[in-house]
């Protein structure tokens, strides 16, 4: 039947079109995946290449026949990479913990407690979110200098503690805990603080964890502020430490060792990401959509 023929035609066309689209899609995704993964591969590969053989390669090789770990030992010995690592660890952990404390109390106050001027204050907080960091850094630099906190952990940590954004996220989460729980607790004679620690925090733990992880990522990768206020390498973090190595250390000559350093720096976060993947992506997505 004529009609049937044209339908068969349509079926066929649709099938091939779907197939072509699928192939194109996977190809495109595949290409980008390679573009994302290749630098990491290269980073790792170079870090295990023998120094001599690396420099001898006029045309870079995709593999190495004699992988070595000596670059890693170089990285730790020639420059105080270990020190940078420890500094970053201290900075990250302390800042994150302090931040979690500060924002938990603040979010709790906004979400649960009643007081005069609450709405006004929160609006002000929100307005602060609009202030770009770059403006603020200038004065903070002066402030920290004046307090003589350059090259110190306090100087690194203090300005980095608060973020209105996380207060906002946490407040939203706190607000979703039903009022009835609070009233029931009150009737049982629970104080506000107890309620916070016994009920709110456990219920909202996922958000706290997500916020914590996001802050950890932020601290670990922080560059500008440490760069600005530390010039004593004993206080360098990994990011400005890396920069230092690149320019004054063996950066120019010993690329494999540099790469070893880079791998060491990147691995903790990558591991963190692989473990908490869903949480991190959810957190960023929520944060993005709330913006």
């Amino acid at each position: 039947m004529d009609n049937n023929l044209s339908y068969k035609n349509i079926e066929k066309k649709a099938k091939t079109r779907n197939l072509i689209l699928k192939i194109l899609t996977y190809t495109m995704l595949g290409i980008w995946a390679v573009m994302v993964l290749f630098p990491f591969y290269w980073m790792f590969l170079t870090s295990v290449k023998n120094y001599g053989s690396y420099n001898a390669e006029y045309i870079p090789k995709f593999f190495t026949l004699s992988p070595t770990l000596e670059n890693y030992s170089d990285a730790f010995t020639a420059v105080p990479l270990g020190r940078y690592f420890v500094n970053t660890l201290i900075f990250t952990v302390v800042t994150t913990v302090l931040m979690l404390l500060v924002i938990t109390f603040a979010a709790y106050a906004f979400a649960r407690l009643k007081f005069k001027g609450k709405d006004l204050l929160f609006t002000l907080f929100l307005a602060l979110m609009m202030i770009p960091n770059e403006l603020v850094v200038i004065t903070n630099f002066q402030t920290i200098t004046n307090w003589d906190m350059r090259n110190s952990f306090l100087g690194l940590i203090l300005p980095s503690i608060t973020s209105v954004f996380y207060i906002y996220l946490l407040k939203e989460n706190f607000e979703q805990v039903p009022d009835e729980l609070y009233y029931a607790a009150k009737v049982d004679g629970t104080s506000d603080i107890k309620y916070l620690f016994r009920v709110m925090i456990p219920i909202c733990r996922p958000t706290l964890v997500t916020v914590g992880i996001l802050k950890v990522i932020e601290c670990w990768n922080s560059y500008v502020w440490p760069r600005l206020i530390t010039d004593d390498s004993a206080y360098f973090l990994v990011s400005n430490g890396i920069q230092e190595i690149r320019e004054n250390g063996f950066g120019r000559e010993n690329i494999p060792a540099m790469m070893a350093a880079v791998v060491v720096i990147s691995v903790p976060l990558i591991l963190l990401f692989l473990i908490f993947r869903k949480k991190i992506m959810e957190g960023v997505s929520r944060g993005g959509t709330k913006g």
Partner: protein
Amino acid sequence: MKVVLKHLTKQFPGPNKKTPGTIAVNDFDFEIPDGKLVGLLGPSGCGKSTTLNLISGLETPTSGQVFFGDDDMTKVPVENRGVGLVFQNYALYPHLTVEENIIFPLQNLKGEQKLTKEQMKEKALEVAKLVQIEKYMERKPKALSGGQQQRVAIARALVKMPKVLLLDEPLSNLDARLRLQTREELRRIQKETGITTIFVTHDQEEAMSICDLMVVMKAGIVNQIGRPQDIYDDPINLFVAQFLGTPPINVFTGRVENGKVIVNGDDVFDAPGVPDQDIYLAVRPEGFIPNGTRFRYMRERREIMGRDVSIIFTHENALNPNNRAIVSAEENIPEQPGEAFFDLKPAKTFLFSRETEERIRF
């Protein structure tokens, strides 16, 4: 355009490789005649929406075929089938006005079927008048009431002169008053356009009132197909008998012995030629003759409804605690509770095998 389903089956994949998925549509094999208003009726989960999706092409069958007329449409993609579909939630494009929503399908016509802007507007206006929505052409969907939105959805489905019009639970989102009104609208529109129309519903009253043909389903299996009155008068099994009819049919457990139906020791009904077995006895509310001699019951109360009187009663073997008989107001029904007897009208009384729930005919 008639629609023919040939051994159509749809099985959804299970949660893992070991557990098989549900069979939503199980070997449907029937024909929907051209130009009729057909209802797919059944409780939730019976597969009616899936059937609709199979006809429209939004789902592909696991096996079997779908024909429009003589053309095998089974593998033809959705966009080429030429069906109109009215979604349960209308799916009106929120960012377009009513007119733009209706014109949308027309803008997809290609080649020789392509229309000019004026022609499209004309057609849109025509179909808008058909559903009586022409006053709201400039509005956006969120500024319309539920009933109005639905009419826009119908207009959009009709504007491209589909071969088949499909409606998914068209009345369930409307309030009671609107439901009655819209029901009639649907019937009127279908008669005027003459398009084969298939709609899905779980409300038997709705289906009964406007369908030319009804397909009653349960758990993916077609139970009975026929005209509403036919199915009502001649149900093929207990499920169909119970599903149709408001107020619902009254069901009692009993037994056939020696050609007589025995319920709770009483000989209530004659069933000549029926082999001895356990049965369900089902009687329509209008099937009870009061002041009878055989069917013993316990009257709880009566409800006077002007034209009729309802007798609410209990019975030891009843499946339901409350049973209802509807009789003429001219009958003398005492007010106080008490024991009494009915006789049963044969046309309104059905026997079903206790084991298979199938109808016992005699």
